[in-house]
């Protein structure tokens, strides 16, 4: 399913103009190396998510693009011109801050019009664009309110309107949804994505929430300890994780350690045919790709089959997660549709194509 849509996404991307080009950016704070050699291209109209745990350097990278921090080395180009040499107020980049950073002494409409006023645009134009921006985020009714009097979600919309009203080439969003409760957050994810399609501005969205990254992005750039682990579309990064870290951070996975010899991959007692080079190997196998063999139809001809004993069962609503122990002691997670309580031995299978070869994630420190 994933592989069929992939070429479409790629070709759509290659047809787009590169907007921002991050080249070999490195940054240290004192002796701590926060970013090491980051290179990344962002296309016109693209929604790119920088995903990473806290301390991965994602916010620092965003702040370097915005101009609040200077990189120690490397450069950033916007449409072929150096961006990193300009002060923040000369960059055609706007930011939605994590805690919104609305000006408390200005009303909602004054906040939204701030960028246009400092640019000394004609009053009539400012008024028209502010009205339009407030309508876009459905906040027209609050034009005269002070930011202190409106809710977090509403402040969020104002921060968005305040940035977009300036028609930036690039919008940076620093964990903008992290302060909202779960329901509002899901709603804002959808709204934000459709808004981005509507305005056609490139978004660089920073988050630590992998689900948020999957839902919203055209591409996900996974950052780990200051280096890019993998940059790919959500489907690609999920179905073909390049490294063990990616496989584990995005979604849930089983890592199978083994080796390939004479075209056969072996992990404990499991073995299947592969067309891969020989040597030690690490495979990622998603829990939902392991199926319980249907007793009526029997197992698939190409599938790897094995037996396992249920050790633990966790109910997740539509699905449930089983911990299964095989005869050789190998423990695997299996995700299945929710059924009545299961017990004892199970016949299981998976397709060899779902076992994805991944690289070990190197130690960094």
């Amino acid at each position, binding site marked *: 399913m994933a592989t069929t849509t992939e070429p479409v996404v790629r070709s759509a991307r290659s047809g787009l103009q590169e907007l921002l080009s991050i080249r070999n950016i490195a940054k240290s704070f004192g002796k701590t190396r926060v970013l090491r050699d980051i290179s990344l291209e962002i296309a016109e109209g693209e929604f790119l998510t920088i995903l990473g745990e806290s301390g991965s350097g994602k916010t620092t990278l965003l702040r370097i693009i*915005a*101009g*609040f921090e200077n990189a120690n080395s490397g450069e950033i180009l916007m449409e072929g011109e150096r961006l990193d040499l300009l*002060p*923040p*107020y*000369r960059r055609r*980049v*706007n*930011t939605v*801050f994590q*805690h919104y*950073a*609305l*000006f*408390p*002494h200005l009303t909602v409409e004054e906040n939204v019009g*701030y*960028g246009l006023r*400092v*640019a000394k645009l004609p009053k009539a134009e400012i008024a028209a664009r502010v009205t339009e921006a407030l309508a876009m985020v459905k906040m027209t009714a609050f034009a005269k309110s*002070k930011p*202190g009097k409106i809710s977090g979600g509403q402040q969020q919309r104002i921060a968005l309107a*305040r*940035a977009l009203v*300036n028609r930036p080439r690039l919008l940076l969003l620093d964990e903008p949804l992290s302060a909202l409760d779960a329901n509002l957050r899901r709603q804002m994810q959808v709204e934000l994505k459709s808004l981005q399609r509507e305005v056609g501005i490139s978004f660089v969205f920073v988050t630590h929430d992998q689900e948020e990254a999957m839902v919203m992005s055209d591409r996900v750039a996974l950052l780990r300890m200051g280096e890019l682990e993998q940059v790919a579309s959500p489907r690609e990064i999920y179905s073909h994780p390049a490294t063990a870290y990616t496989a584990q951070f995005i979604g849930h996975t089983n890592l199978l350690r083994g080796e390939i010899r004479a075209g056969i991959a072996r992990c404990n007692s499991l073995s299947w045919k592969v067309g891969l080079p020989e040597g030690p190997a690490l495979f990622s196998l998603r829990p939902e790709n392991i199926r319980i063999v249907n007793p009526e139809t029997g197992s698939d001809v190409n599938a790897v089959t094995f037996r396992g004993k249920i050790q633990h069962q966790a109910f997740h609503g539509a699905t449930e997660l089983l911990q299964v122990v095989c005869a050789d002691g190998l423990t695997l997670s299996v995700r299945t549709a929710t059924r009545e309580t299961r017990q004892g031995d199970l016949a299981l299978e998976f397709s060899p194509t779902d076992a994805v070869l991944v690289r070990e994630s190197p130690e960094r420190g």
Partner: protein
Amino acid sequence: MFSRAYRTAITLPPLLWVAVFLLVPYALLLCYSFWSVSPSQTITHSWTLDNYRELFRVNVYLQTLFRSMWIAARVMIFSLLLGYPLAYYLSFYAGARKDLFYQLVIIPLWVSYLVRAYAWKTILGSDGVLNTLLQYLHLTKHPLEFLLYSPFAVVLTLTHIYTPFAVLPIYAALEHIPRNLVEASSDLGASPLQTFWRVIFPLSIPGVLAGATFAFVLSLGDFLAPLLLGGPSGIMISNIVVSLFGAAYNWPLGAAISLCMLLLVVSLLFLSEKLEKKWSFR
């Protein structure tokens, strides 16, 4: 939560303190302001409004009050002009030296007021450091007379003494401005100057008001600086009150002037608090 007896026990001492050392003296002051001095130099305990009439009838009192206000206003303006940039530098640019500079602002407050006032006398006098230097450099032939025993000397000294009182509240207000607001302003295209006038300054207004109030009110009631450095042209209202309670032996008139001053100061504090509330957003 606490027993009634316990609550009474802990509230009583401060209440007594306030009553004995604040309320009673003010009540006495109020009474005195309606009494009078007989020709035989004793205080007559009969009620009269003469003191207040005297206050508005004799020009020198009102003139001195206005001069005091004018001196206090100048001290306030100079303290803000000196104090704001200092506080701004401290808060935004001092970096690792922030604490050191903060202490440097505080330290003069530990030095006796008298020492600092006398220091200015030594600097400004006709044989003082400044005049000697000017003549040595042949910039002036004779000592400059206006330097000492003038309103100028009073304004200079009071500005020196009260500037830290202006710096501290402004610094506190600047420290409370979330730095992401400054970043947001810059991000939205505002130059550093635009960011200052549109974001930083408006958000520091409560501190400016507090600092201005300190400088003005403390200067208005000052009597040592005019006494030591003011000369006849630099007399302030407190000097008159001091002489009325002392050599002139007219306590009732002194009390009436004191109460007018008190009323003025309390209204100023009230006004300043109202304005500060209007300009704070947290």
